[in-house]
């Protein structure tokens, strides 16, 4: 079912996130850091969006706000019909639990749990999850289910993280430098699994990367500079992840 939407042009899809005048100011010591300086945005359901830009340009801050990990200092943000900026902490937690899958650069697996148990960590608290074994099969790790993170390679660990993120069938996958710690061959494998989730589950995929090459697999690219979206590129010809090189 979700596959049907995948080929539509992005503009025609429903909005997953709508943001208006989002600002974020951190106060560190005596200096104010303006991480976001009034960002307006619309992210479409089911699209693959890449956030590009130099360090400190505000992309991670935006990703954290979208994921309900952080709150903007000013501005409003909606997920579908829900105003995220109006939610309290428990409701934000509920929002993350129900809708968001996170993937980090350093995997953030729990070292004391096996691959399967790391996935179970999420399926234990989800309403309609896929069985952990199935999620691991989707990322090609059926054989390594009983392994602990320390017994897995970096790429395998990141694929466990992907399995953990997709197992609850989230509406949105947020990935902060998912391939940053991986070599290109492994990185491509991880991106393939992410692209599969997008195409097969209809999951909105938002990726932060320093790697401009990855932009080729996206529907759109937000270019960040100094806490603002400097430009938006639409990519009419998505390249499959397997075709990426860097």
């Amino acid at each position, binding site marked *: 079912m979700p596959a049907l939407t995948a080929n539509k042009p992005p503009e025609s899809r429903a909005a997953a996130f709508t943001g208006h005048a989002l600002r974020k100011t951190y106060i560190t010591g005596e200096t104010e850091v303006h991480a976001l300086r009034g960002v307006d945005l619309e992210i479409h359901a089911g699209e693959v969006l890449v956030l590009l830009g130099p360090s400190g340009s505000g992309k991670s801050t935006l990703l954290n706000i979208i994921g309900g990990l952080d709150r903007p200092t000013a501005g409003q943000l909606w997920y579908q019909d829900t105003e995220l900026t109006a939610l309290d902490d428990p409701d934000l937690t509920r929002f993350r639990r129900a809708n968001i899958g996170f993937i980090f650069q350093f995997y953030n697996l729990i070292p004391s*749990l096996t691959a399967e148990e790391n996935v179970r960590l999420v399926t234990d608290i989800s309403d309609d999850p896929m069985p952990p074994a199935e999620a691991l099969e989707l990322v090609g790790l059926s054989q390594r289910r009983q392994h*602990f*993170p320390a017994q897995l390679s970096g790429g395998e660990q990141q694929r466990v993280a992907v399995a953990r993120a997709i197992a609850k069938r989230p509406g949105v996958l947020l990935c902060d430098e998912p391939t940053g710690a991986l070599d290109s061959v492994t990185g491509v494998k991880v991106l393939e699994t992410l692209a599969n989730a997008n195409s097969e589950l209809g999951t909105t995929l938002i990726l932060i990367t320093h790697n401009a090459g990855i932009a080729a697999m996206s529907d759109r690219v937000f270019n960040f500079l100094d806490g603002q979206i400097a430009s938006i590129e639409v990519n009419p010809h998505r390249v499959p992840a397997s075709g990426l090189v860097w």
Partner: protein
Amino acid sequence: MRALDLKLLRDLWRMRGQAFAIAVVIGAAMATFVMAMGVHHSLTQTRDAYYDRNQFADIFVSLSRAPRSIVDRVAALDGVAAAEGRIEQFATLELPGRIEPARAIINSVRDGGVSKLNRLVLLRGRGPFSDKAGEVVIDKAFAEANGFDIGSHLDAVIYGRRSKLEVVGIGLAPDYIWSIAPGELVPDASRFGIFWMGEKALQGISGRTGAINALSLKMERGASEHEIIRRLDAVVAPYGGTGAVGRKDQLSNAFLTSELDQLEAMTKVIPPIFLLVSTFLVYVVLGRMIRTEREEIGLLKAFGYSSAAVGGHYLKFAFAIALMGIVLGSSVGWWMGRSMTGQYAEYYRFPFLYYQVSASVFSSGAALAIGSAAIGALGGVRTAIALAPAVAMAPPPPPIYHAGPVERLGEKAGLSAVGNMIVRHIARWPGRSAVTVSGVALSLGLLFAVLQFIDGSRAMLDNYFFRAQRQDITVSFIEPRNEKILTELASMPGVIRVEPSRAVPAILRHGQRSERVAIESADRDNRLTARVDANGFEVPLPTAGLMLSLPLAKQLDLSPGDRVEVRLLGGRQTDMTMTVASTIDELIGTRAYARSDTLFRLTRDAAPVGSAQLLIDPAYRNEIITDLANMPEVLGVTERDTAMALFQQIIDENIMSMMGFYISFASAIAVGVVYNSARILFSERAHELATLRVLGYFRSEVGIVLLGEVALLVVLAVPVGCLTGYWLAQLMVSMFSSDLFRLPFAPERSSYGIAIVVILLAAAATALIVARRVARLDMVRVLKARD
């Protein structure tokens, strides 16, 4: 200030909670040490100074009656430096507004209250004139308890004669630092006074002109106590000597010594527990600190700091914590010791009480504290020294988990992912988990062992007053009476039953060992008193031979069936050999028993009744007490219920006030251990906890990961703590036992309950404080920072 020392200060500030929690445990060790040693030293010094200044005698003996000239004969014995004779005379006092008779022991002194030995200290007023009948100096505690002062008058019956006494002075003497009326178990200053009266006056009243009935002497340096006692007994034997005793067996000194021994025992049991826990804590906290500061250590070494400088830096950290504990504990201990010394002053009567904690107490306590911190720091410091700069600057390898037995167990038990996280983390850090479990267990055990003291005291109370003593009133006589007195007592209105009993002083000898005891007797059909063992079971008197209390049998190396030489003292001195028929495991004193017919066959005297037990109709209580007080042959009247209430009061006042200290100290261990393990856990798992929050776990659910592990360890500590407490309580019971009494090991189940609840509450409150950090967990920041 050197940069490294600046780092030390900042580290201490950053880790102030953990450092303080350890310092509190070290402080508890220091406080109990300073308190017990300080009080011990203070009491010892006060006692020694008092004994020295007031010529406290070395050897004491009571006689029936001897001419005063015997004093010179005794003084001439080899090794005797000085001898003093006096009259000790019991008196019954009639205090206004009081039915119960009070008693006093009146000691004779020379003109003006002077004596060679056991000198009277006059606090106020003057000494009595020797020939002025009725002038007395009374002891301070009795005066205060009854509101007497100089110029007060009181009525007394002395040797059957009614006399009016006038208080001319308030005083104290070194042979009555602690005093108790004969036959009583609990001191009661309001009902038992120590009086001093001029010699001639007392001779006149007691009909002992030119005679004495008590002797004491001081030995020359290096003289043999044993030898002098042997010779002294030979000299006084014809005068009804009841066996001389050294200071060890002098009642007042024996109680004081037993108290001092208990204080010393306390320093051997309690501070080591705290020190052990603080060693554990330093080990765990410093170990964790060094693991997280690997990169800094590498950097310091790369900059050229020597390994010794880096190791010394962390050692200083441990010492700084110890120093905090030392300062904290010294002041608390000093203050506690002062209040405890004040309590002692109520029961032990000194003319002055030095409360002085010597520098050596502080310094040895401090040395122990620093030593245990150093031992705890050793492991961590060695790691810091051994780290090569290059290795140290790489992040530590992540904790490696394998599919081990714990993992398989968790799978079999069907644990949730979070459950597995908790169980596996415990198994991954077995040493630290063991520290948490044993620390909490020790605090629980310590608390239980202290609670058991109250249970033991109550059990002793129950054992002695409810099981062994069923009479309402015990009447003791000035001299043993014949059986007519029983009929007389039985005919009083309201008296339901009368039973005689007797105690005959004797020396028991077995090989080289000998002990002075009183052989107590009761009739075969005796129902009001019973011999009850430590377990509360009544043990019958043997039909023939002696029954010895177990401590006495041990002291004399005797078992049932053995023969023992018995010398009856007082009056006719009879030697014979008797069989030890049985032993009894009793709580109070070292005692010997025989049936009255057995004893009668030995004494063959006409006056076998030393005291009588009465069961009465409570409605007649006042009349009976008044009548008894008016009988000239009656020396003392003891009511069981009054004694029991007094005993209860002592338990309540003394033990309960100490309980406050111990509950807080035991809780301090639990707090210190739980706080540190929760903090370490939090810092180690902050990353994982933040990950869980990101994945959609609520704060409460994330809190479970943190609290679950602590809770599981604390729960594991409960049975271990109960076992530790069981063992510790028995150790303390045996260390605190003396010849005078022995607390039974008789814990109430509720004591386990109370100890568990207190420790669980302390642990829960502490863990919750740390768990609040989960609420403040900044997911973004934690996830950005690599652990």
